[in-house]
């Protein structure tokens, strides 16, 4: 086979793969939009679920707010831990063995199936720490799920920076804490925000970690972090799983997809606006 044909085949392969992925993705999105659009109206967005069984009528407002709250708690919890871990590993840790062990642990955490994280959240947070099925327990469980996602990316950002800039800061007699807060954080703020937003999108769509730890079939918008919540993915699961209302399930999926797309588009806008600076 001559080189020209090989090249053509590779191009063809890449092209077909690209088209397959894109068309599948757009099919899913368009299908859900078409099916779900008919259920969408103002009452659906700002109303509480009603009817018997609950969810067959009414809206999904508490689930939207519940999902957003869960995401916020997860992001705050995971970001604080992930950034401090990444900074420790990149700037402070000089012990090669410890570095390797930490990386192994983080990568393993990333590989834990989310339902097992849910089980851990249930036994440890809900029962042992007595948080109950609550926003807090679910948020933390989701936080554990997205922690490696954020940590790995932030560490990569710090790892790929120009080390000489950091050393130049040290060379002025400045401690690492100041170097991180006043030099690295301002430089990489946008990248870190983009990462956290993407992780938020990951968290908001996850059902397994919150099934046992936070989500319930019906709850009003929570007033405290210790109250149980409704959440979009769980609501969707119940509506379809229990055969309550297929139309409302598609409506819920529609809202969830819109939220997810927003969470994924925000980082792109975030990096585009950098060009204007």
């Amino acid at each position: 086979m001559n080189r020209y044909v090989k090249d053509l085949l590779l191009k063809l392969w890449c092209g077909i793969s690209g088209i397959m992925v894109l068309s599948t993705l757009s099919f899913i999105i368009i299908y859900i939009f078409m099916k779900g659009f008919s259920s969408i109206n103002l009452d659906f967005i700002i109303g509480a679920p009603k009817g018997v069984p609950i969810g067959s009528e009414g809206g999904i407002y508490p689930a939207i707010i519940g999902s957003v709250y869960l995401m916020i708690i997860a992001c705050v919890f995971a970001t604080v831990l992930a950034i401090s871990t990444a900074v420790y590993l990149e700037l402070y840790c000089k012990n090669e063995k410890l570095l390797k062990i930490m990386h192994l642990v983080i990568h393993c955490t990333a590989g834990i199936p989310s339902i097992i994280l849910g089980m851990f959240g249930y036994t440890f947070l809900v029962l042992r720490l007595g948080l109950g099925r609550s926003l807090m327990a679910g948020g933390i469980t989701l936080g554990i799920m997205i922690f490696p996602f954020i940590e790995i990316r932030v560490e990569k950002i710090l790892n790929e920076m120009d080390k000489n800039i950091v050393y130049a800061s040290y060379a002025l007699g400045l401690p690492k804490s100041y170097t991180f807060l006043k030099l690295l954080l301002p430089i990489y703020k946008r990248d870190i925000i983009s990462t956290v937003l993407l992780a938020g999108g990951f968290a908001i769509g996850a059902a397994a970690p919150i099934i046992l730890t936070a989500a319930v079939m019906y709850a009003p918008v929570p007033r405290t972090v210790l109250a149980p919540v409704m959440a979009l993915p769980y609501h969707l699961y119940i509506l379809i799983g229990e055969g309550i209302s297929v139309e409302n399930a598609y409506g819920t999926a529609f809202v969830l997809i819109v939220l997810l797309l927003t969470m994924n588009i925000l980082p792109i806008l975030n990096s585009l606006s950098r060009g204007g600076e």
Partner: protein
Amino acid sequence: MGIISIKNLSVSYGNIKILKNINMEINERKITAIIGPSGCGKSTLLKTINCMVEEETLSRVEGEILFKDNNIKEMTKEDIRKEIGLVFQNPTCFPFSIYKNMVYAQKYYGNTDKKKLKHMVEEKLKIAGLYDEVSNDLNKSALKLSGGQQQRLCIARALTVDPQVILLDEPCSALDVKNTKNIEEMLSKLSQDYTIIIVTHNLSQAKRIADYTAFILNGELVEYSDTETLFSNPKDKRTREYIEGIYG
């Protein structure tokens, strides 16, 4: 007694010995050049003097370095680096404005008086010979300056913490003749107030600006004397061969 005394200094990375038993006295308010072929340990010596070498994993330092008779091991790294500044081979401007680059360190030391800061920025930029070129636009991004200007900004920034010693690691290696000349003139002026140690590949640069020159080969200090003697009448055969261009 010099401002810095290096005694029996050895540095290794893992199993590889980079510097072997270096003994040196650095004289105050003079320019000391360190010359030698690539990979001989010149930069490591510089980085050891202000503890930068400790930021690298697996490095091990033996022997002692005295700064004004104080062992640097007994000082905090931050204190040493404040007294002994370091300018890198490639310009390391922070991706902020020129002004922000200049006040970056001062803010840590709690100087927030705008008037004083402005005065300080002006003064240090003038010393570095950069003020006239950038005075109209201190808010311009430092990364938009030319290579030579960036390097002078880095030197000016190193001066903002009022160090006593400035270490320069081949500061002109990425610059053209004109910028090199600017920096050399500035260094000669600076040596009235500061002690300067410069690592250079460029023998004629050492000859032009240095009061003292040290020749390092394979991690050993081969010869160290005043520049004129070292270049006109080297005692060691290896020094003569290097100067005549036999090594690298």
